[in-house]
């Protein structure tokens, strides 16, 4: 069954349309806009559910001349991700309606959240590399708006900037990677499908071979990996995710645990069939396991419940990346199954954290415990999803972690990877021990003695508890009958991301295997180490505090500070506010570029220059030259300007002699105007100022350079002109009357044949006028008149 274009398109467009209508909706409905959002998300979920079981590509022509089309590709993997996003979105909107009660600028909040959901559905369903990139960056943009929701909070602003910097920066790497990929795909699947990911996935081997033939395999893989790692918070770019917890909790649950951060994982799964190989294995398995371990350790060091969950999210994303990194089919099973499990239990955990923070007023781990009596339902929910996160059998997280262990053990069987064969399973177990530790720590919120300092804890609203309860129920279903989930969606997701097809089965282990032993060791060590949690916690914190450079935040701050400082210094040098500096750089650069252009193309310089000229022309030109010399030696500004206009008028006369009346007229009138403007501003210029020798030399050299460039350009271009009239000139002369209806060829060319150029010049004139207004009227102080006025004369000069 192939998908319906209209339904897929509607599911992607609907959230954007709702986002656009949000300000109006908010005016009419107020805080109930959240329910509209939930309805939109549910509608998207319903629309996409009708496509369940379909597979194939549909497309809508977008930029036909560039072969870019709005293609959608629907298969199990895309549907799994899109259904998760819209389904969890429904719960998040309902939760937001209760959680964000009484907050300000909710209109912006809901609009951004809706736009985000549209973008995430776009990433999931788009089959075109350009469209994927656009939706990808849109999710970063929405995330920026949502993290910076508290606009007056310095910390939120910092976190929002950091997330933007890392994820959008990573997106640029991704774009270059996509371009390299499309270069090779053009060879493999034909230029018409160069951006068509669906076509590439049809022939993964041909694309991989084409990439290797061009030597682009490793660069493309690396660039896409950087993009995915930045988005999915992989080490060493994981630091933005804990900071992003400055966002309201529903946003953290939706964007920064269930969907947006998984986009990187999603893409890794998507392109897996194209790149799977030894490079892929080493890159992603190492990256994923490193992230899993480092972030699990950092989670143990956390003091804030949201920070703990954020590091835990990064750690689990590492698990998924590592799963996809293992090239066996078990790896794909790990990635797909854990993506589903993690989305369910982590979103629920964030919502639980939101309830705890909302009802107790604090998020500090040290101040919270024994909440089971105050929040019994929440405690039950937390128990199910928390144990799933820890990977304790028979909860859902156990099955996917078991798959990871199996894949890690088998990693060495497909490719020869040396010592890594032993290292991967060891690291996987080591990291998982910390996962057990922090999961237990989170559950400790609900057990033990209730601290006396904790004030009155009120019961959460039903709407706050319902969404995490739904997610916990789903987690419980997957835990009890994992085969159900596998049959429903995971198997088709695995088929889309795995290289070979394999029927997937998961169940509780009945006999001892290496993976079962690893699970037992993990859980056993975790339970044994838990009594020493506080010592571990303090120890990791002490190490982090003692050596700041091992924290990624430190590197980010240092990089940003260096960039900002360097930018300011460069700005001061280049942008010093003196017109002469700008003029020097502009003129010198233009001249050098022009001259090097001639040199690069090897234009021959005509050596024989005929000097014959009619006596009248010669006379006019001699006067012009004399005037030019007189400008330099003029005793005052007024005299200089007047002498300069002699030069201009001589050129006008030269035009008349050269039978170009239009040019002459224009030159005459413009010359008059320039003269007047010069005289207007001249009194603002200091009468006389000292000029040091260095500047005289610089000005002289610059003038010589500009003059030489003009001379060479005229010489070369006039020499290159063929003898007699060219075809273009003849065409204009012949067609002016029949086509343009005018005998003045110059004017017919201006308004008719080359009307588009003239239009461009009009825009220049208008822009000049606007910039003059801006420069002069909106200037804060009135001391730089001379610069501005000369600037205006110069701009005018260009418009001629």
């Amino acid at each position, binding site marked *: 069954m192939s998908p319906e274009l209209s339904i897929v398109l509607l599911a992607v467009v609907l959230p954007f349309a709702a986002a656009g209508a949000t300000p109006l909706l908010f005016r009419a409905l107020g805080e109930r806009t959240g329910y509209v959002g939930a309805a939109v998300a549910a509608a998207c979920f319903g629309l996409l559910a009708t496509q369940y079981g379909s597979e194939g590509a549909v497309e809508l022509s977008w930029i036909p001349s560039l072969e870019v089309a709005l293609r959608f590709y629907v298969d199990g993997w895309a549907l799994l991700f899109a259904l998760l996003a819209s389904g969890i979105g429904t719960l998040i909107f309902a939760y937001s309606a209760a959680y964000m009660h009484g907050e300000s600028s909710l209109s912006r909040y809901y609009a951004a959240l809706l736009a985000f959901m549209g973008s995430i559905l776009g990433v999931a369903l788009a089959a075109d590399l350009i469209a994927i990139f656009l939706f990808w960056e849109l999710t970063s943009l929405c995330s920026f708006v949502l993290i910076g929701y508290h606009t007056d909070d310095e910390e939120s602003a910092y976190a929002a900037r950091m997330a933007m910097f890392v994820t959008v920066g990573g997106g640029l790497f991704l774009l270059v990677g996509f371009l390299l990929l499309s270069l090779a795909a053009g060879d493999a699947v034909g230029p018409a499908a160069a951006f068509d990911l669906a076509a590439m996935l049809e022939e993964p081997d041909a694309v991989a071979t084409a990439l290797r033939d061009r030597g682009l395999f490793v660069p493309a893989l690396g660039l896409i990996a950087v993009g995915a790692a930045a988005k999915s918070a992989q080490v060493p770019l994981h630091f933005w995710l804990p900071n992003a917890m400055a966002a309201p909790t529903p946003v953290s649950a939706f964007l920064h645990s269930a969907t947006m951060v998984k986009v990187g994982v999603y893409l890794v799964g998507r392109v897996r069939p194209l790149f799977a190989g030894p490079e892929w294995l080493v890159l992603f398995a190492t990256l994923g396991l490193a992230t899993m371990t480092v972030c699990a350790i950092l989670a143990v060091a956390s003091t804030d419940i949201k920070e703990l969950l954020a590091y835990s999210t990064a750690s689990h994303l590492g698990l998924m990346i590592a799963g996809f990194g293992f090239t066996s089919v078990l790896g794909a099973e790990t990635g797909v199954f854990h993506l589903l499990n993690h989305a369910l239990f982590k979103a629920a955990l964030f919502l639980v954290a939101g309830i705890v923070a909302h009802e107790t007023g604090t998020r500090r781990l040290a101040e919270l415990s024994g909440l089971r009596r105050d929040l019994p339902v929440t405690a039950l929910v937390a128990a199910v999803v928390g144990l799933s996160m820890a990977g304790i059998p028979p909860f859902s997280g156990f099955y996917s972690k078991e798959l990871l262990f199996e894949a890690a053990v088998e990693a060495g069987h497909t490719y020869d990877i040396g010592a890594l064969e032993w290292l991967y399973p060891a690291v996987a177990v080591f990291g998982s021990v910390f996962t057990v530790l922090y999961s237990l720590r989170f559950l400790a919120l609900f057990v033990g003695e209730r601290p006396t300092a904790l004030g009155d804890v009120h019961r959460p609203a039903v709407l706050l508890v319902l969404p995490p309860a739904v997610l916990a129920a789903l987690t419980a279903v997957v835990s009890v009958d994992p085969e159900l989930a596998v049959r429903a969606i995971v198997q088709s997701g695995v088929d889309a991301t795995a290289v070979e097809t394999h029927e997937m089965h998961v169940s509780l282990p009945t006999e001892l295997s290496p993976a079962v032993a690893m699970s037992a060791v993990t859980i056993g060590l975790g339970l044994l180490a838990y009594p020493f949690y506080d010592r571990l916690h303090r120890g990791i914190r002490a190490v982090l505090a003692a050596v700041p450079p091992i924290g990624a935040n430190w590197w980010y701050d240092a990089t940003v500070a260096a960039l900002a400082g360097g930018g300011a210094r460069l700005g001061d040098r280049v942008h010093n506010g003196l017109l002469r500096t700008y003029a020097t750089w502009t003129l010198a650069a233009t001249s050098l570029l022009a001259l090097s252009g001639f040199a690069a193309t090897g234009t021959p310089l005509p050596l024989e220059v005929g000097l014959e000229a009619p006596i009248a022309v010669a006379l006019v030109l001699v006067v012009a030259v004399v005037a030019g010399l007189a400008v330099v030696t003029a005793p005052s500004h007024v005299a200089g300007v007047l002498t300069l206009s002699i030069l201009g008028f001589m050129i006008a006369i030269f035009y008349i002699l050269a039978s170009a009346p239009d040019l002459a007229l224009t030159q005459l009138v413009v010359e008059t105007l320039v003269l007047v403007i010069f005289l207007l501003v001249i009194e603002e210029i200091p009468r006389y100022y000292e000029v040091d020798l260095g500047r005289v030399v610089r000005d002289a050299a610059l003038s010589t350079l500009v003059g030489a460039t003009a001379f060479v350009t005229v010489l070369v271009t006039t020499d290159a002109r063929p003898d007699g009239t060219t075809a273009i000139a003849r065409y204009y002369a012949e067609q002016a009357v029949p086509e343009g209806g005018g005998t003045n060829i110059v004017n017919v060319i201006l308004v008719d044949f080359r009307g588009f150029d003239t239009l461009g010049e*009009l825009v220049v004139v208008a822009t000049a006028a606007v910039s003059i207004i801006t420069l002069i009227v909106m200037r804060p102080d009135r001391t730089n008149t001379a610069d501005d006025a000369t600037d205006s004369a110069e701009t005018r000069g260009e418009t001629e």
Partner: protein
Amino acid sequence: MRTTTRVVVPIILVVAVSLFVEGHNLPGGGFIAGVLTTTAFVVVYVAFGLDFLERGVLGREVEPGKTPSRDRVVAAYRRLFAVGLALAVGSGLVPLVLGYPFLSQSYVVLEGIPIYHHLEVASALAFDFGVYCVVVGGLLTILSVVGAE
């Protein structure tokens, strides 16, 4: 100076208009006519001062020392170049509606009109008028803003 201005300015304006109208067949055109018109205004400014147009010609009261951009005349210049740009683009869009490429031009020859007997109306005239408006508006804006300094 002022006497000369009174005599010269109308002549300049008439010349500018004629340059504009016959630009299609003889030397001239929207750009040059626009610059020439601006020159006429410059002569007025130099001879009578910046506020003359408002006070003397339009008979409005002007508070001295007002920010130049807020002057109604400058606002009018700004409007003029905006209108000119819109006209030029608009005249380019008309052929698009009729199914020709952007900015294609045509002309109609009208016969039997009194005095001229034979008049040619080129659609390029509309575009050229746009050019004229942009040049006059743009240059006068620059001039009066700079001049007010």
